[in-house]
């Protein structure tokens, strides 16, 4: 009995040390998660900075009448913890391609643009434009305050069960060559 008490008393410092290390690790992990979700981090790669970021600066999600701004991760990273981790894991592939130099020039970027855009569109369609809806919820959207064209299209889209990205493509970045997607809206060749 005496022996047992002695043993458990010995374990306390180890437990305490473990808890401190654990808390520190969680803090570092969360801090890293937050830091890698900042615009500053995203555009630290020139692939992002000189292509998609430059185009985004021309759009309403960067500058608009009310001054509300949506940055990279507001649209491209889930706001839910587990989906966020899943997307971050997927981003390892993007890091590999950064070091392989798959899109390290404007020409290479444009050559791969359709494929990359289609990936993002598919992702957004599959999750019912979840990130769009974290700001733009259809329940809180007053269609009667919209232009008649927007109202008609939104009501129709709702009836047909469509999701944001199906119509609102090329909103924050320029579109890729759309010849294979909508040839009726591309210059004839």
């Amino acid at each position, binding site marked *: 009995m005496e022996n047992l008490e002695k043993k458990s008393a010995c374990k306390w410092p180890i437990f305490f040390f473990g808890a401190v290390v654990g808390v520190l690790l969680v803090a570092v992990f969360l801090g890293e998660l937050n830091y890698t979700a900042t615009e500053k981090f995203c555009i630290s790669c020139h692939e992002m900075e000189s292509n998609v970021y430059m185009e985004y600066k021309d759009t309403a999600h960067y500058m608009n009448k009310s001054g509300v701004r949506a940055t990279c991760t507001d649209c491209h990273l889930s706001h839910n913890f587990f989906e966020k981790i899943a997307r971050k894991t997927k981003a390892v592939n993007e890091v590999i391609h950064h070091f392989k130099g798959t899109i390290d020039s404007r020409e290479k970027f444009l050559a791969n643009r359709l494929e990359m855009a289609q990936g993002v569109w598919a992702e957004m369609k599959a999750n019912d434009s979840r990130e769009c809806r974290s700001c733009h919820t259809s329940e809180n959207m007053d269609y009667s305050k919209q*232009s008649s064209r927007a109202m008609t299209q939104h009501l129709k889209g709702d009836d047909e069960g469509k999701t944001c990205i199906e119509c609102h493509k090329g909103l924050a970045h320029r579109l890729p060559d759309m010849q294979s997607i909508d040839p*009726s809206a591309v210059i*004839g060749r």
Partner: protein
Amino acid sequence: MKKALLILAGLTCVAFPINADEVKSLRGTRALDAGSEPPEINRIIADDRPIPRDFVQQPPLIPHETEGYRVDKNYNKCLSCHSWVNYKQAKATKVPPTHFKDRDGNERANLSPGRYFCAQCHVHQVDTKPLVENEFEPVKALR
């Protein structure tokens, strides 16, 4: 020769001094370092019904906003509603058949490249007073 011209120019200036008040530039008679008056910001007519034409060959005016509508070789945002494939879904006016004929008179399978850049002829409207008085009236056929 050059010297003679210079002397002549100098003499002309002395003979006919220009009165600064009579010269009117677009920026008015403000001093060069004063900065010009900011132009009026006009609101684009964002949501109107189609606007009637004033002459028969007039390219129809755009009764909606077009801000951020890119037209480049990858895509024509206007055609995402006005093309023959998309107009029904968008309940928009479709591009007329005339736009499928190229400058050599060939009928093409898709929009003629010469007609691709919509804003060369079709323009959005702002709610503002005309810059000069205008008594233009539509032709008889449209009255």
